[in-house]
């Protein structure tokens, strides 16, 4: 089955936007609708679209790493973000925050929950890609 030219052209434009949007959702999640889970689902639909237009081989080439590695990475990141709190003598998974900059007298903070959320993102995206690619190549 050869995908239509319209789909392929539109996909090129759309997928990059979808992926950027998914990262945006991930990062804004703490203050507005979004978060790691939703971001990963958006990214997953983006890649699903890409699979339909270009086939699974090109998706594998584009992401370069095995999606199962993404699952492992996400799990590791989530656990490490929990352990950081323990290193500070607090219970496992306690959120710690650091101010990294101050713009217009507003503090920009980064905390371990962000890493946790990135871990969630990686696991969910890794799972979706693992399953879709395996199904597609079956």
């Amino acid at each position, binding site marked *: 089955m050869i995908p239509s030219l319209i789909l392929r052209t539109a996909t090129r434009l759309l997928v990059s936007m979808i992926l950027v949007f998914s990262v945006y959702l991930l990062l804004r999640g703490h203050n507005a609708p*979004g978060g790691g*889970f939703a971001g990963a689902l958006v990214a997953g639909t983006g890649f699903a679209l890409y699979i339909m237009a270009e086939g699974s081989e090109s998706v594998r080439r584009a992401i370069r790493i095995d999606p199962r590695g993404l699952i492992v990475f*996400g799990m590791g990141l989530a656990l490490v973000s929990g352990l950081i709190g323990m290193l500070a003598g607090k219970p496992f998974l306690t959120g710690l925050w650091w101010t990294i900059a101050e713009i217009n007298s507003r503090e920009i903070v980064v905390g371990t929950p962000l890493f946790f*959320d990135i871990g*969630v993102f990686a696991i969910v995206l890794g799972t979706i890609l693992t399953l879709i690619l395996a199904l597609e190549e079956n």
Partner: protein
Amino acid sequence: MTEHLGKTGIERAARATGILPLLLFLGAAAMVPHTAAGESYRLAIAWVPGLGVNLSFMLDGLSVLFALIITGVGFFVTLYAVDYLHGHSHTGRFFVFLHAFMLSMLGLVLADNVLSLFVFWELTTIFSYLLIGFEHEAEASRKSARQALLVTGAGGLALLVGFLLMGIATGTYEISQMVAMSASLPDHPLYGAILVMVFLGAFTKSAQFPFHFWLPNAMAAPAPISAFLHSATMVKGGIYLLARFHPILGGSEAWTAVLVIVGGVTAVVGAFTALGQTDLKKILAYTTVSALGIMTMFLGGQNAPSLTAAMTFLLVHAIYKSALFLVAGIIDHQAGTRDIEKLGGLARSMPVTALGAFAACFSMAGFPLFFGFIGKEIMYKGALAEAMMPGLTTAAAVLANGLMTAVAGIFLIGPFLSGAARHPGPRPEACAAMCSGPLVLGGLGIFFGIVPEFVGNWLVSPAVLSFHAHLEHIKLELFHGINPPLLLSALTLALGVALYLARKRVNYGVCRAYEMIPLDASRVYDAAVAAVAALGRAQTRVLQNGSLHRYFYIVAGAFVLLTGYSYVHGMQVLPDIGVPVLSLREWLLILVILAAAGAVLVTRSVLLAICALGVVGAGIAVIFLSYGAPDLALTQLLVETLTVIIVSIILLHLPGLGPGRKTTGRKKLFDGVLAVGMGVLMTTLILTVLSTPLDRSVTDFFENNSYLAAHGRNIVNVILVDFRSMDTLGEIIVVATAGLAGYALIQKRRERL
């Protein structure tokens, strides 16, 4: 590891790990002067303080005796195993298991909190499993490993129950505190239950009759493991337990009666069975069972000589039996067989190994000037001094020791002294590292036999006094004068010679006796394992028959029936369910959802049905959005989208699922009833939930703290990644597991195609 280090690199690294037991041994030895003076040391780290679980350790005479055995034998076993396993592809794994076991065993004998003791107890069981099954490509090996795991694991669970009951009865989980308040424990109503549970744990671990069958099977493990775990250390775990809890649970008639009878039966049955074996390791395994029985029997006693006998024999046995197992391993390694019928003339071709074997066997036979003799003397002294059943104890001890003397003869005379080898011919001597263990341990048996006062004052007596401080100190001596114990020793040797000469006839009798017993524990074990497997197959046939329909019926049916029942049962008054006033937009939405749901029912195309379901989901997402839940709506929409995509991919790849299959009328009716039931139930539940007033305290907490404590304005996300991140962690573990499991299933299908 294999990729970075060559074969020899791993072996060099493995040899270097011998430093770990050596250092621990030296550390324990340095504590001996302190513990011999009656001091004890305690270290506690809070683990789960809310439940009274502490990682607390105590070092006293008893712990030090065990720690010295564990690390001392561990050192020689490490050196030995490097050459024994030379060229094996899993050498690295072996040493990881070996040292992990050693540390767990040390934890077991040092733990002061019963629950941490239990954790170490189970760890030793697990590493024993891994080490018995080390040659996992052999089926016998796997089977034996599983048997040992199940038997000792079940005993471990019983022990946990015993520990918890003890905690309830005494109000503490610390052994040192239990000892202080143990005087009234034998009168406690829970005492009987505690005793049974602790006995089950100790008897399974220390291979007491009728649970002893796993130990001979555990000989599937490599020889150094048999020497270490299954003679010197792990099987002594139960003995340690009985000694450690002697001041807490001992002192009752039930304690003495059970231990003397079970121990005595084990000692005699084990030794009789050993007599008829032809495999060197099986001979040693059954004598180990017998020896453990003797220790158990003497721990049943209450007086100082009995307990000293148990502790002395513990050391005696650990030294000579680990040496003999190492010898058996050397013979197997050099000659290629462990069958005594095929071996011969080894004393000439392997003189160094023979020297170690002779020293250890003479200790086992209990000849004067060997440590075994000292152990036997004190044993008879203890047996004669017992208040309950002295005659029975003495008889069992004499018989078991006589049999062991005969077995020592069988071990030595056939393989080492008889003419030239019948099977393999003369074999070269093993290397120095392998011979060092039997030689040093054998030599130790002679050294301790000549100066027993030394080991008695520094190791044995402090061990006894550490759990019974009020008892008198029993001196170990080579010669006590002509007295009943000496006469009994002489009788034992004579009995041993007689049994050796009549071994064929005795064995014939033993075999006949075995045939007459209709049921033994090992057959009960086999039947139980087979029954569990059959149950598993039966329930798989019913529940997991591979039909998606069936799974869904079971899940949905169980939900409707159970939830519906508890809803109707628990409802006081019918909830006030009013029909809410809806705007035009909402009515339109409902119409779209209903139309899509109707399309699912009507259409024949599976693909169309999936898309229509997606529309239902999207409609619900819009409802969420209109009620001010953007996060929920976003997620719902995305999940619906992905579901449609994934299911479409699956359907496009599946053969023969184009148009839906025709279903029969009855089946349709059943499906319909279930679907309607589910829908009605869910609707009623949600309306009921809505009609009860909302408790806002949790919401208020999140609203007030979300930004101040967690730097986030989106409460939903703050809850997910911060306030309740433990839940999220659990969920992402589920997602990851499901993803990998799904991947494995898909891959497997592809392989089959």
